[in-house]
């Protein structure tokens, strides 16, 4: 019996079995942890298992954020509210091995789930839900084999959970609110923020050892804002003096009012 092998998603292991005379059967059980040295593949990769996904805190429970735990993978900070993000998708941007975030391939069960701009998958909220449905995923950083196409950067390669012979399930609720936050530098007051995130997942057998089912639901209800600062015409540009009185006259019918005392502004025309 050979021990000490773990097959992870997208991984491959060399298993050299020596045959002995007189043995009619040979049994192979894969039970132990993986060796530190990868002998069977030249791929530079790392795995994120279900325990890591389940136990580590995730802002918005976006499982692709966990890819940044691997060496060579870094998040790219882009303004979430930037207008050009709508042209590119709102998923978590990752640079793998120094490549652009739009050169990666995200796969679930072997199917590419990149967004319409070949960027990271993500909703309008910028997160990838369903972490409870992801069994594990690997991050191929480079030198991967020809079976992984559609990418010159990295490959995020995930598989989903399936039901087993035992019924398992979980339910959860996460809440964030502005009362738990501090003001940032630009906030004059705390901007609105409240997020409810909840879900349930479960699986089990329909027929033992034969047919299984698994389901996962996750929902987000969020009300949020960021503080924006804009340049606007000052009181002087509107013809208002330091004491709040109009310094210029006159063009009757101006809809502008002095912010200090709501006196209609009277502005001189050329």
């Amino acid at each position, binding site marked *: 019996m050979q021990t000490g092998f773990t097959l992870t998603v997208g991984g491959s292991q060399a298993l050299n079995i020596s045959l002995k005379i007189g043995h009619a059967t040979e049994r192979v059980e894969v039970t132990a942890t993986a060796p530190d040295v990868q002998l069977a593949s030249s791929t530079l990769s790392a795995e994120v298992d279900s325990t890591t996904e389940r136990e580590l805190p995730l802002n918005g429970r976006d499982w692709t954020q966990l890819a940044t735990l691997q060496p060579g993978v870094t998040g790219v900070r882009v303004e979430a509210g930037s207008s050009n993000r709508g042209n590119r998708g709102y998923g978590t941007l990752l640079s793998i091995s120094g490549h652009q975030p739009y050169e990666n391939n995200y796969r679930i069960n072997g199917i590419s789930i990149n967004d319409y701009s070949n960027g990271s998958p993500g909703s309008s909220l910028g997160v990838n839900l369903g972490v409870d449905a992801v069994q594990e995923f690997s991050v191929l950083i480079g030198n991967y084999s020809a079976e992984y196409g559609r990418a010159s950067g990295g490959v995020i390669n995930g598989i989903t959970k399936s039901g087993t012979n035992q019924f398992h399930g979980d339910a959860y609720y996460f809440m964030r609110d502005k009362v738990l936050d501090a003001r940032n530098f630009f906030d004059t007051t705390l901007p609105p923020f409240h997020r409810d995130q909840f879900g349930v997942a479960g699986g089990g057998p329909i027929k033992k050892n034969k047919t299984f089912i698994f389901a996962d639901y996750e929902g987000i209800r*969020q009300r949020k804002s960021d503080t924006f600062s804009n340049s606007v015409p000052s009181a002087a540009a509107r013809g208002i003096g330091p004491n709040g009185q109009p310094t210029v006259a006159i063009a009757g019918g101006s809809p502008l009012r002095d912010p200090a005392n709501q006196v209609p502004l009277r502005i001189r025309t050329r």
Partner: protein
Amino acid sequence: MTHIDTAVLPYLVFYPLRNDGLVTGDTGTFTTSGVERLTENYLTLRGDHRFSEKDSFCSELVL
């Protein structure tokens, strides 16, 4: 004395008044936070069937 062209006057109403202490010349700062409401639902349904030790089938629906 400030001169404002009457052609510009109707458009000044579209600019909010400054609401903090920062003024640089003819411009001030208007700070605001508009609320964005988002609702998101995610559903996965997966079924597996094992025909034998070697053959299995799975189907998955993601909404």
